[in-house]
């Protein structure tokens, strides 16, 4: 990436905020799926992703337009590639009409890989950033 897109920002966005912000959906989907309501679980997880892609994304672009920020739908190469890969995987898995633990494992593995790549990208700046971090001192070994 270029100097205009610091990895740290992209990392915070890509991993931290979504996990925290989607905690409600996560636990709802898992709870509901554990009761056998798989349609509801798919509606929550898949539907949330669709809502972000089709509603929140353009909404943020338009709000950025109003605020005179250069918010675009160009999310960077890494983000775009991961998103395309994830969408391909999910689209392949969703088409057979039933689910099993293999598919769930595949999905989770895909996310773990993305998180790992993001983490290793982040490692480069981590040492520098931790010196600035309030919690960083707490975390340093």
């Amino acid at each position, binding site marked *: 990436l270029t100097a205009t897109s*610091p990895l*740290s*920002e992209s*990392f915070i*966005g890509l991993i931290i*905020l*979504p*996990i*925290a*912000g*989607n905690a*409600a*959906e*996560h*636990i*709802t989907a*898992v*709870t*509901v*799926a554990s009761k*056998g*309501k*798989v*349609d*509801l679980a798919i*509606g*929550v997880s898949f539907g*949330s*992703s669709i*809502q*972000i*892609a*089709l509603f929140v*994304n*353009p909404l943020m*672009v338009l709000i950025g337009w109003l605020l005179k920020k*250069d*918010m675009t739908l160009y*999310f*960077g*190469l890494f*983000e775009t590639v*991961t998103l395309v890969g994830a969408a391909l*995987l*999910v*689209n392949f898995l*969703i088409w057979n*009409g*039933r689910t099993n*633990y293999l598919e*769930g494992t595949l*999905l989770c593995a895909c*996310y773990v890989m993305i998180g790992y790549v993001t983490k290793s990208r982040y490692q*480069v700046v*981590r040492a*520098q*950033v931790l010196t600035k971090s309030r*919690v*960083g001192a707490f*975390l340093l070994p």
Partner: protein
Amino acid sequence: MSTHHAATPTTELAAGEDTSEGDSSDDEPPTQHLTDPCPSHEGPVREHASLFARLNLCGKYQTLAVTNRKLIPMTAFPRPRLRPVAQTYDAVPGSPSEAVRAPPKPRDHLHSKIATLRAIALSSWANLLLVFLPAGIATGICKVPPIVTFICNAVAIIPLSSLLAYATECIATDLGDTVGALLNISFGNIIEVIMFVIALIHNHIRVVQGALVGSMLVNLLLILGSAVIVGEFQPLEMVYDMANAQALACLLSLSVFSILIPSSLHYTMVDEQERDSAVLTLSRASALTLLVVYGVYLTFLLRPRPRYGILSDTESQYPRPTSLDVPIADTATVSRLSRTIRFADEHHSERNSLRSKSSDSIALEPMNEARSEHSPPLHELLDESASDADNQHLRQMTDRLRKAKSRPHPPAYSRSPSNSRSRSRSLNSTRRFRYRDIAERYGSVASDDLTTPTLDVTTNVGVHANSAHGPVISRPAAVVLLICSSLLVALCADVSLPNVPHVSLLKGVACLWSMADVDISSLSPQYRL
């Protein structure tokens, strides 16, 4: 409202019967149902009702057959199960009539509210952990070790999430899975939108972009994957609505495309100035397009189930397709599932009036005409008050009236040769709701099953087991609960976010999270890559 009838039977019209693996072994030819006997003749009302039921069955099964062949060939559609109630009665064996007549005790508003609160409080044992909620927020405000804050908030999220899931399930049972899921994710995403707008104001465009992609990834991969894995541990087979899932998959492809195009534009243009402005213009244009697409998608989801506003509009114009069947159907559908049934009633009339307008279903026309001819004024009154969504009290009164009225006439449980194989295969109420969803989405009248008088009200094992945790609170209460719990979950997540401690299990994640309290814009440029 109807939260306090613990002893009343969980009754369920055997509407969406379980089907086998998507073949047509359950499909009955429509003509077979046309000749179904309707043995209930207990007075003029009953006779009319059975007459209308026959008409209804004709219309319904023609429509369903068409729907089945043309739209969803893989799924078999629900058909009525006519069963004697004594076979399937579980709650109080041997005394169906007594339980059917279980009198709805008159309660005032206060009592119903208390009952709702009790139902919410007793919905899960995890609600005991709610004491950690104020503790978590207080530790977030005060200066305490971050690990305390994190643990308090993480524990507080557990009951909040269970409440959230409970509210979502209530709404989903009430209004269908799509609406339930939509409400749930909407409140979750509204909070995210607020977060993003704040970040955008502070010029963290990369954070916002990363969070948008990250949210999609988390939802698509982590949440879906863990839900699928967890769902593997419950006994039912995980089969879902293919039509819905495929629509979602296509929408996902479109949204990925909309993100791919600016990227390709970004990498194909050479001049940087020109490239940025081109990407910006393209993004704004496609943002508008995507909003239109989302509006169409919402319409697609919600149109076959019109809102109450539409109902009141159409009511005034079109003859009410009325409710001869309603009191009879309500005789045994007391208490727990009565909300579901009532929902079907309302939309039943609603859909019929819409249908007579749209005239795409020829089969339903005679039924509507016949119904509107014979509707007695009392039922008009009853149904009108019942279809008013806002007026809970009136609705309650109406229910009481119906039940009181129908008490001298216990429902006639007709037997039919087609009902022999039913019990073990009707265990999956999720599927039943799902079929109702499919049928509603594609405009068929499957939920007419729920109100057709010849369809017998049968106690259903699966639903009975299911409704132990099932929805018992009213719709507004569920919505309020959903809003409150999602707000509180977001608050807890937010409080615990900047203070992620050194948790050994989550060490890697915790290390990553430690950046959250860094103000990125305050970093000098050499800290950026």
